[in-house]
C-alpha cells in the first residue's frame, strides 16, 4: 500500500442518525483500502485558517468502474472542520490523502470474532465483519453509544452477524449501560477468539482488558488527535510495548491506528511512562 494525495469529488452527503455519511470518489485511494485504514481530509478550502487534516476511518469502499472507487466515511459535526465537511454537496471537491495506517489483522483460521463499536467508531467494523465471514469466522456484534441517535449500523450488523447486542447510556435502545456491561456474558457464551474494537480510548481500554481476561486476542483502532496523518508531525503518539518488551511512544497514524490491545499501555495514555525508550531521566519531564 502506498498512500496518495488526490482531489476527490463528493458523490453524496447524507444524515444518518446524528451523524453524516459522506461518499467520495477518490481514485487510487479506494482501491487500496483494507478494513481499519483511514483517510485524512483537508478542510475549509485552499485558504482555510484550519490547517490540520482531519482523519476518518473508512466505513466502506465500492468499485464504481471507470470513475474509480468510492469511499464512505461517517462523522459527527463537533468542530469547525467537521461542520464544514457536513455542508459538502454533490460535486464539491476535497483534498484526500490515503489510505493511511495499519489495518486490522485477519485470522488465518475460521475463528470466532466479536466486534465492539462505540458510537460511529463502529464504522470500520462492517467491512471487516464481511471479510471475516468470507473466511468462515463467526461474528457477533456489540454496539454502544450514549443515545439511540448516536448508534451507528445496528441494522447492518444484524444482517451480517450471529448476534447483535446494543447498549445505550440512557436506555433509549437496547440495554441501559455500556458495551463493557454486556461484553463479558457474550465472550463467555461464544468463547470468542478475537475481539475487534473501535471507539473512544476509555472504551478500548476496558474492552482490551476484558478480552485478555477471557483469553481472547484484541485488535483496537485508536482515536488519537492527529495533525498530518502521514507520520511527520509526531502528535498522535501513545505508549505501546514492542516485541522486545520495550515501551515506545508510537505514532497512531503509522504504527496504528490498529494496535494489539495487550500491547497498549492504556492506563498510561496521555503520559510518558518512566521506562519508555528515551524517557527523561530526571523528574518533571523534558525541559
Amino acid at each position: 500500500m502506498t498512500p496518495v494525495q488526490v482531489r476527490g469529488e463528493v458523490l453524496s452527503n447524507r444524515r444518518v442518525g446524528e451523524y453524516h455519511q459522506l461518499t467520495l470518489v477518490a481514485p487510487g485511494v479506494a482501491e487500496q483500502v483494507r478494513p481499519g485504514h483511514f483517510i485524512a481530509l483537508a478542510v475549509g478550502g485552499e485558504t482555510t485558517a484550519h490547517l490540520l487534516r482531519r482523519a476518518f476511518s473508512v466505513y466502506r469502499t465500492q468499485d464504481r468502474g471507470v470513475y474509480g472507487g468510492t469511499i464512505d466515511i461517517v462523522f459527527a459535526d463537533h468542530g469547525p472542520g467537521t461542520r464544514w465537511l457536513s455542508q459538502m454537496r454533490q460535486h464539491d471537491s476535497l483534498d484526500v490523502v490515503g489510505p493511511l495506517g495499519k489495518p486490522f489483522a485477519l485470522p488465518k483460521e475460521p475463528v470466532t470474532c466479536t466486534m465492539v463499536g462505540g458510537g460511529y467508531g463502529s464504522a470500520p467494523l462492517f467491512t471487516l465483519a464481511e471479510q471475516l465471514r468470507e473466511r468462515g469466522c463467526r461474528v457477533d456484534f456489540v454496539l454502544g453509544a450514549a443515545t439511540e441517535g448516536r448508534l451507528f449500523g445496528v441494522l447492518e450488523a444484524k444482517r451480517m452477524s450471529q448476534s447483535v447486542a446494543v447498549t445505550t447510556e440512557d436506555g433509549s435502545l437496547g440495554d441501559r449501560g455500556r458495551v463493557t456491561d454486556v461484553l463479558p456474558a457474550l465472550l463467555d457464551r461464544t468463547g470468542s477468539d478475537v475481539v475487534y474494537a473501535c471507539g473512544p480510548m476509555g472504551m478500548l481500554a476496558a474492552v482490551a482488558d476484558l478480552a485478555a481476561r477471557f483469553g481472547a486476542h484484541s485488535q483496537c483502532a485508536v482515536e488519537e488527535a492527529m495533525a498530518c496523518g502521514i507520520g511527520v508531525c509526531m502528535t498522535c503518539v501513545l505508549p505501546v510495548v514492542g516485541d522486545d518488551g520495550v515501551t515506545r511512544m508510537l505514532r497512531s497514524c503509522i504504527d496504528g491506528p490498529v494496535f494489539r490491545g495487550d500491547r497498549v499501555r492504556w492506563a498510561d495514555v496521555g503520559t510518558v511512562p518512566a521506562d519508555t525508550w528515551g524517557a527523561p531521566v530526571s523528574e518533571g519531564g523534558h525541559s
Partner: protein
Amino acid sequence: MTRLTRVITPDSSRAALPDVDMSTALAGATLPNPVMTASGCAGYGRELDQFFDITELGAVVTKSIMLQPRSGRPTPRMAETPSGMLNSIGLQGPGIEQFVERDLPWLEQRGARVVVSIAGGSADEYIRLAQRLRHSTAVTAIEVNISCPNVDNRGLVFACDPTASATVMEGVRRHSAPGIPVLAKLSPDVTDIVEIARACVEAGASGLSMINTLLGVVIDTDTMRPHLGGVTGGLSGPAIKPVAVRAVWQVHQAMPEVPIVGMGGIRTGADAFEFILAGACAVEVGTTVFNDPSAPLRVSRELQQILGDRGFASVSDAVGFAHHPDGQPAQ
C-alpha cells in the same frame, strides 16, 4: 447514480514553467532549488517521499536530532489555532547513532541533499553531535537548533542569549567539517534579533535560519486548564508569517552579506517570494506540509512562476530586492 466528471489529480509539473535559474548559493553550498522542508515537519524524508520526489527539493531539513533517544512529551502535543498550530512534541527522536546508521544512509542513497538539524541541552552536546556528523558525506549543511533550553543555564533558551548562542555556534563551527555551512536557527522570542544574529555570525555561523516557533499557550475552555501536556508550545503556520518576514528583513538590513534561510508560515510560492524579497536566499516549508504533504514541491514551482512573471532571471537577483525601492538589487 449521477454521472461524474473524471477526477484528475492536480499535477503542476505538467505546466511549463518560466526559465528561471532556481539554484541558490547557501554559504558555500549550492542548492539546485531554494525550497527545503522545515525541521520537525518532514521527519527524515521517507514519509514525504511517498507524495513527491524529495530529490527535487533544495534539501530535506531533518527533524532535530539529539545525542540520545528521546521519548518526547506527553499528549496532547498539539492544538489547532487560527491559521496555525501550537505544538509541544519535546524533540522525540531516535538519537544521533540510530539516525546516522539508519536514516542518513537512506537519504544519501535516495539522492537527497540533507541539512541535519541538531539540538542539545549544553554546548558540549552540540559539539559531540557536530563531531559525529563531521565525516559524513551525506551532510549538505548543519542547522543548529539553538531554541532549546540550556540545562546548564537555568533552562534559559540558548537563542535568547547572545553569549550562549555564540558559545554553541563557535563550538559547532570548530568541530564541523571545514566547508560545511553551519546555520544558526533563531528564535523570534527575543528583544533584538539582530543582536543574537550578529553574535552567531561573529562566532562562526555561516548563515542564519529564521524563524523558529513563537512560544504560546492554549487554554481548553472545557477543562479550564492548559490544553497541551507540556503547557507551553511553539506557534507555527501562516499566523506567524509577518513576524518571520520582519525578522528576515531586520537581519538582512543589518548584515546584507549573511545568507539567511527564511521560514515561518510559508504556504504558497508568493509567501516564499516575500521571504526572498526580504533577504532570504532560501526558504523552508513547515507546518503547511501537515495540510498539504506535497506543499514543498508545489511552493517551489509556484515560486519559479512568480519569479518569471516578475522578470527575475534567477533567485539570487531577487534576494533582498524589497530593500531597494529604486529597483536596484543589493551590491
